[in-house]
């Protein structure tokens, strides 16, 4: 809901995310080896694995939400490919400070983590 009188956002509406859309996810450089993300990078924190819906975020904006942006890179996923991994759901979960916020929920066991490493691509390389 948007408070039109003051332009202050109470909350953003939750929207369905099409399979064709993209997600961005920042990854600390210690979660990489030889320039590739490692399986440990893909884990749930809270409700799920935090990502940003590309409709409302750029890779740079995603990067700048890190505590230390200069130590992170940004990965891109196809929503449809994420949903094709067993037991993974993609749900738009906007928060006041980030309309793009999206959770990838579902257990991140070895199967899932390994498959996530295979479907992502860097859009901003880590240092």
């Amino acid at each position, binding site marked *: 809901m948007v408070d039109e009188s003051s332009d202050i956002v109470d909350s953003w509406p939750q929207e369905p995310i099409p399979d064709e859309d993209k997600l961005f996810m920042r990854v600390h450089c210690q979660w990489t080896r030889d320039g590739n993300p490692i399986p*440990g990078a893909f884990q749930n924190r809270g409700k799920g694995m935090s990502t940003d819906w590309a409709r409302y975020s750029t890779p740079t904006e995603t990067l700048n939400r890190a505590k230390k942006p200069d130590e992170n890179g940004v990965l891109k996923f196809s929503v449809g490919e994420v949903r094709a991994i067993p037991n993974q759901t993609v749900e738009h979960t906007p928060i006041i400070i980030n309309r793009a916020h999206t959770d990838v929920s579902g257990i991140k066991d*070895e199967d899932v983590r390994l498959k996530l490493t295979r479907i992502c691509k860097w859009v901003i390389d880590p240092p």
Partner: protein
Amino acid sequence: MLSEMTAPSKTKETLRRSLPRNYWPENKPLGSSWILDTNVSLPWKLIRKYRPTIAYLRKRNKSLAKEMALESFESWVNVKSKLVRIEEKNGDELANLKEALASAKALLLGLQQDWDGEGSPGYSEETCERMSNFLLNHSKQLAAACGIEAPIPKILPGPNGSIDLLWKSDDYELLLNIPADLQSPASFYGDDQGNLCIKGKLDPDKINQGILQWLMSHQTL
């Protein structure tokens, strides 16, 4: 690959150990550990009849393996008319693994609470030790039983203070997670990015035959 196929020089620093009569690994790596057949002077076809020798030298390029096999064996003196495994006494078959473990431990233990800015915890000595023992025990088992140097995985930080072990080749990946909770089992998943996959849990404090089989079949040739 030729250097891998060169027989180690024979010195006084060798041990000899008899193998069970019917024992033979399907895949035997070339390296510091060798199995000899006393009938080395026999023509190739006859050597093949004595399965142990040819199995040892089996490579994807069979013709090259055959040629090198004969050359290599000619430099050895037969001991007895039975299989004998000869190991270099001073050669530590686990040296590469120990080096990788030391390096990985230093990295993991250097990661403190919130090292990634996302709240990730650090890694404990106990988890590192459990992981280290798992790898060393399985590698020792392979070296002792089959003379195989097990492939060394990437030793990686895992979620929530756990440690990931990742074996990766062109056609296969296996990910095994050693949890931070010392009472919890390890879990693993591997596939060929096609039809075959394995998945399960195991006690990392015990030798697991399934993992041994997998390591044996994915040794570096």
